[in-house]
């Protein structure tokens, strides 16, 4: 039964090998999706190229549908799949910081590594920035630790929070994604007309 690691199908050492292989595949797919290019990524925020939104939502609903049906077929114990605990306010503010960094630098942490590995200098500089940021965060954490741990909600999922069935939640998320795809296509056309060039 999945998740395999939690059921001791293999050791910690071997899990690193698997993580390496999956990581390579993940990076490769991101690069092929165009996520190694800061211009494409940043264009998301000016609504001229909605590729980020499309790729993200595709990944989300693919994974969500897979997890739902695997659980339904008894292949997967969803309660063992790790979910980050929710700390509402700190995570909203942290998310806003990430968004600002995304617009300014053109990458999110993962894509900066993809970009750096293809030899882009801006990606490499971005990685240096990440490490500097981690260092500053680590050194100054005691100053805002109470805020960092505020509004803890534990492990929350959408269906538990709203009291909906798992299937209904999935259906709504899929609808939202399909709606977002349609809106993105439409938005790109409008922006292309406005900018006088086709969507990339």
């Amino acid at each position, binding site marked *: 039964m999945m998740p395999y690691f939690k059921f001791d199908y293999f050791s910690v050492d071997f899990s690193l090998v698997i993580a390496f292989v999956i990581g390579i595949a993940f990076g490769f797919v991101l690069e092929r999706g165009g996520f190694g290019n800061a211009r494409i990524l940043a264009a998301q925020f000016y609504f001229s190229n909605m590729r980020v939104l499309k790729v993200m939502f595709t990944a989300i609903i693919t994974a969500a549908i897979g997890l*739902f049906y695997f659980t339904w077929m008894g292949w997967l114990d969803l309660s063992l799949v790790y979910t980050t605990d929710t700390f509402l306010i700190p995570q909203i503010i942290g998310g806003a910081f990430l968004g600002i960094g995304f617009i300014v630098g053109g990458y999110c942490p993962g894509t900066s590594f993809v970009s750096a590995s293809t030899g882009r200098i801006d990606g490499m500089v971005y990685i240096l920035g990440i490490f500097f940021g981690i260092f500053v965060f680590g050194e100054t954490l005691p100053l805002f630790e109470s805020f960092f741990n505020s509004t803890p909600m534990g492990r929350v999922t959408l269906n538990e929070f709203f009291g909906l069935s798992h299937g209904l939640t999935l259906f709504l998320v899929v*609808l939202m994604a399909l709606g977002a*795809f349609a809106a993105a296509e439409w938005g790109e056309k409008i922006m292309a007309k406005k900018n006088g060039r086709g969507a990339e």
Partner: protein
Amino acid sequence: MKERLMKLSTPWKLAILAGLLGFIALLIGNPSNRNVIDVNAKEMALATVKNHDRIDAMTLADWLIKENADYTLVDLRSEKEFGEYNIPTSVSIPIESILNSDLMRNQKILLYGNDDVASAQAWFILKSSNYKAVYILKGGLNAWKNEILFPKLDASATAEQTTAFEKVKQVSLHFGGTPQIISGGTATTVAAQTTVAPTMPKLTAPAGKVGGGAKKKKEGC
């Protein structure tokens, strides 16, 4: 109809597929009901025959002394009984709430009640809910009392038995127990204190938290 479907671009086909799967999910509702369990009867029967899943009191005492912490010790008795006495490091999870606890399916879990009955029932519930490593403390708390807290040695014991008892005595004193030597029907305590009727050791600080489980490890991206 078929021709129309074929003409659609790949993104459209995928979108329709996702929409369909989402809709079917809506009809399915909840993919797993945690209160209904599937049992592989044969596997369970084999597991009980092999006796691999029983840990005796002495082994547990040994683990506790060595501070071996790769398992969670679960007290299945009521919270009141747990408050009166519990084996060090145990957590209180009354048997009726065993499936709603924080116990993880991949955790090593050692169960005990007053005797073997409650732990055997809980063992069955957990095993059939796909908990991987579930063990029973052989004889439960009663065995813990007899073997660890209040071990007895007959006065007419052989030298071998006495040597063995010496070791048990040390273990017993470690857990605040009262080892006794029985001669002619009267028990004499070996420990420094001279109370004739053995008393339960007082609960000392780290008695484990009520209803809790092991702290979750940080993981993720």
